[in-house]
């Protein structure tokens, strides 16, 4: 009987390969290592703006925030008279667990952000309110209605909340060995530690309890442990940042590594609690900056801490039908829900923005689709629309968001808080559209927002309008927005030099733009400024300078897909096609849906002579671009022509003798290979032959062939016998030559029409009926030989035209002797030619 599929999805907010990598190498994350070894792993691309409640709702729905409706950390109360931390009420799309409920599957959900108030699904929901307790141990912390579904489980899970006051030195010292040196009057580090630790242990305790005591098909568990540790302690992580006092650095510098190690310990326990038939996914919604882009002084605007979120999180999956120890590419948050639905053989809504990550599966099942899950009638375990939970005004959760810096303390005047929240949510929606490049949807929202008055800060809206104008190449408008920003920002603290440079470029003031960016680079170098400088060099056709600029940009940010793509462009212009292809591929590995990178890869492959793959790359570029990709379309036309025209044959040889070389005579059948074998034989180079094939009417002088060649693809262990001899090998078998020997290949060329007709005659077919398919196959073989010769370092190859061998024998013989690099008898070789054999000529 087929085992029932189960999926455990574990969310590690902000987990980043940059920290995980060194820990895995030192064996300090054994549970994750175990999963990677038996599963797939790769980057998870985040979305803009990278705010966790929006991102985890995307994970749960497969939709972007404009569709699912969760647009920030806060939401307006239904009566519009207050604000509160975002709840499940903001979500307009059905999540995985709603769909599973409808399909009769059981789900457990723990800590998902947002999940309060708990939806009445088939299974258990422990919401993101469960772990939040009042910091004062003397205050009672009842589990309020809506925290857990079903309510009957409240009594079973009540004692699984750990209070921060229960945290002891046994928990603290492994993270902060010098905790005793902390001045707790001034430094809140330990309080933060205890709170974050207690909350996540509470979630883990609830999750492990449900794993042990309930039946489930899908289980989702969310931890903010790593994210909250990063917000509190990343500034102390090595390498030490100059402004951080040495004493504090020494106290807290192990915190981040320790957080990952503890998260892994919790994972280890969870893995102990699942069966082999469970697919386990560990993923994060974004990464976290741990290098020189860490921000010590956070700008004062909403959600500024997310500026430290990096564009790539992690994805690891292991299970019965998941590939083993394989890296996967191009995953995005929107792809998670469709992929999990597919694991349960459920159809994907065509209105979902993601795709099934088919690459992760060992056996790929055909995907099924429906128009939408949203329009299906029936019970989806959702709240009734009029449900309104008066416990939603959650002070603890609100306080935490303030502590983390995600939101400002709400104004005393509630109407001001409401107005600011309303504007922030609208702005976030505009930014989602910006991220999707749907400018026509973003613009009206932003134009409405710039009409707001004090105390709303409208500078960020102008910044986005400026970016859109530049993207849409409306430079006059961009200039007016820039002037508006200058007027409003008297101190001129905001960074507008990229916009200014682009406006200058639009006026063809290239030198001024370069000067501006060079000044900015000298003031504060970063990846982006080097990238923009590189783009100007490209425009100036200074490709070597561009290359250096992009390489420097990559030193700042090694996993930036745009920088790799730009470097690939520069490398193509400097004729370094292999390196260009590598960087274009890296860009695609990072972001699969990147039409320009596919186009650049196509260019590089075309130059490398790999026409078929170049064509595929161009076709992918054209398919991914929302508008017609004119350059890709033209490139496809060109390449199609090239594929249809004959291959250009180029010799590859240093024309010198190689010790123990094997001289191979090759070509398509009936292209003069036997003649060349005879010439070599007469000239003094012994042929490796078993003389099994006798001379016949088609080849009256014999074939000089060796039977084992026919099985070369199965056994090439005998090739040492051919050293210092000649050997005849037909073209399609050349690729099976063992690369451990040196080969000198004499490839006989003959007009393909003649080859085909000669063969037709030899096998008694009508020479007037042209076998098109055979012709195409041979053309392909010739192309493959050309590619094989270029990529095999042990192979040297010359082309000898059959006609030349007959009509200009002396020149052909001289070329062959020079190629072999040994003395041979020229006259005897020439004497082999019998022009009467050349009889199938048109």
């Amino acid at each position, binding site marked *: 009987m087929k085992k029932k599929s189960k999926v455990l999805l574990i969310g590690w907010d902000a987990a980043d390969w940059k920290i995980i990598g060194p820990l895995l190498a030192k064996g300090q994350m054994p549970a994750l290592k175990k999963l990677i070894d038996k599963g797939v792993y790769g980057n998870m691309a985040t979305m803009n703006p990278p705010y966790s409640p929006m991102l985890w709702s995307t994970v749960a729905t497969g939709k972007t925030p404009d569709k699912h409706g969760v647009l920030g950390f806060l939401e307006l109360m239904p009566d519009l008279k207050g604000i509160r931390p975002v709840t499940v009420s903001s979500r307009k799309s059905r999540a995985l667990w709603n769909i599973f409920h409808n399909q009769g599957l059981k789900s457990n959900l723990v800590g998902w952000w947002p999940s309060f108030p708990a939806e009445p699904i088939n299974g258990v929901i422990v919401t993101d309110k469960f772990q939040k307790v009042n910091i004062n141990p003397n205050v009672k912390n009842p589990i309020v209605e809506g925290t857990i579904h079903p309510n009957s489980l409240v009594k079973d899970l009540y004692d699984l909340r750990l209070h921060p006051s229960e945290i002891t030195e*046994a928990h603290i010292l492994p993270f902060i060995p010098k905790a005793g040196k902390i001045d707790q009057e001034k430094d809140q580090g330990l309080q933060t530690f205890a709170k974050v630790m207690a909350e996540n242990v509470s979630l*883990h305790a609830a999750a492990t*309890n449900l794993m042990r*005591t309930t039946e489930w098909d899908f289980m989702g568990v969310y931890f903010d442990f790593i994210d909250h540790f990063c917000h509190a302690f990343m500034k102390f992580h090595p390498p030490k940042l100059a402004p951080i006092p040495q004493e504090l650095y020494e106290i807290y510098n192990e915190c981040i590594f320790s957080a990952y190690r503890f998260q892994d310990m919790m994972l280890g326990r969870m893995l102990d609690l699942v069966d082999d038939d469970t697919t386990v996914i560990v993923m994060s919604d974004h990464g976290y900056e741990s290098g020189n882009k860490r921000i010590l002084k956070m700008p004062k605007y909403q959600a500024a801490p997310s500026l430290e979120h990096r564009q790539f999180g992690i994805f690891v999956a292991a299970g019965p039908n998941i590939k083993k120890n394989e890296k996967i590419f191009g995953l995005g948050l929107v792809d998670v829900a469709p992929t999990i639905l597919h694991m349960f053989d459920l159809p994907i809504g065509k209105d979902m923005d993601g795709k099934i990550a088919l690459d992760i599966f060992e056996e790929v099942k055909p995907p099924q689709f429906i128009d939408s899950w949203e329009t299906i009638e029936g019970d989806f375990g959702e709240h009734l629309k009029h449900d309104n939970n008066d416990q939603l005004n959650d002070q603890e959760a609100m306080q935490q968001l303030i502590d983390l810096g995600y939101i400002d303390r709400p104004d005393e005047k509630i109407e001001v808080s409401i107005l600011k929240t309303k504007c922030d949510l609208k702005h976030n929606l505009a930014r989602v559209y910006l991220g999707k490049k749907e400018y026509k949807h973003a613009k009206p929202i932003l134009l409405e927002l710039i009409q707001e008055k004090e105390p709303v800060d409208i500078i960020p809206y102008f910044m986005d309008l400026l970016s859109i104008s530049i993207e849409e190449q409306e430079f006059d408008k961009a200039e007016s927005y820039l002037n508006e920003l200058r007027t409003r920002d008297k101190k001129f603290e905001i960074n507008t030099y990229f916009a200014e440079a682009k406006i200058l470029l639009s006026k063809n003031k290239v030198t001024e733009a370069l000067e501006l960016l060079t000044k900015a680079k000298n003031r504060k170098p970063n990846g982006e400024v080097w990238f923009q400088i590189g783009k100007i060099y490209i425009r100036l056709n200074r490709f070597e300078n561009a290359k250096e600029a992009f390489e420097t940009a990559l030193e700042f940010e090694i996993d930036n897909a745009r920088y790799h793509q730009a470097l690939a462009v520069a490398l193509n212009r400097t004729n370094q096609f292999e390196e260009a292809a590598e960087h274009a591929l890296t860009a695609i590995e990072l972001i699969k849906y990147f039409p320009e990178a596919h186009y650049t890869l196509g260019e590089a492959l075309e130059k490398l002579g790999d026409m078929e793959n170049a064509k595929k790359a161009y076709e992918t570029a054209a398919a991914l671009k929302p508008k017609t990709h004119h350059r890709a379309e033209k490139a496809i036309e060109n390449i199609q022509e090239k594929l249809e025209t004959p291959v250009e044959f180029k010799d590859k040889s240093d024309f010198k003798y190689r010790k123990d070389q094997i001289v191979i005579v090759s070509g398509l059948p009936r292209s003069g290979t036997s003649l060349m074998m005879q010439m070599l034989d007469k000239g003094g180079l012994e042929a490796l032959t078993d003389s099994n094939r006798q001379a016949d009417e088609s080849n009256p002088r014999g074939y000089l062939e060796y039977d084992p060649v026919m099985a070369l693809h199965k056994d090439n262990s005998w090739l040492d016998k051919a050293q210092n001899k000649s050997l005849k090998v037909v073209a399609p078998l050349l690729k099976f030559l063992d690369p451990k020997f040196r080969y000198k290949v004499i490839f006989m060329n003959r007009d393909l029409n003649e080859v085909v007709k000669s063969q037709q005659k030899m096998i008694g077919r009508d020479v007037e009926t042209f076998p098109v398919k055979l012709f195409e196959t041979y053309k392909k073989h010739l192309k493959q030989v050309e590619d094989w010769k270029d990529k095999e370092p042990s192979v040297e190859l010359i082309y000898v035209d059959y006609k030349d061998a007959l009509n200009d024998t002396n020149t052909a013989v001289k070329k062959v002797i020079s190629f072999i690099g040994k003395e041979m008898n020229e006259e005897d070789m020439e004497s082999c030619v019998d022009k009467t054999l050349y009889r199938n000529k048109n």
Partner: protein
Amino acid sequence: MSKESKIKPIEITEKGSLGLLALGDVGLRAWRQVKKEARQKREDEEKK
């Protein structure tokens, strides 16, 4: 219901440990039990 793994016996002290917390509900409850018993013992001794 998911499989229940065999937990190796570990020494539980009143101060607890990261290992216990990582064990989840089982570890948390076992630790609280030890704390409760130790407290009870202290209280009993104080009464004597």
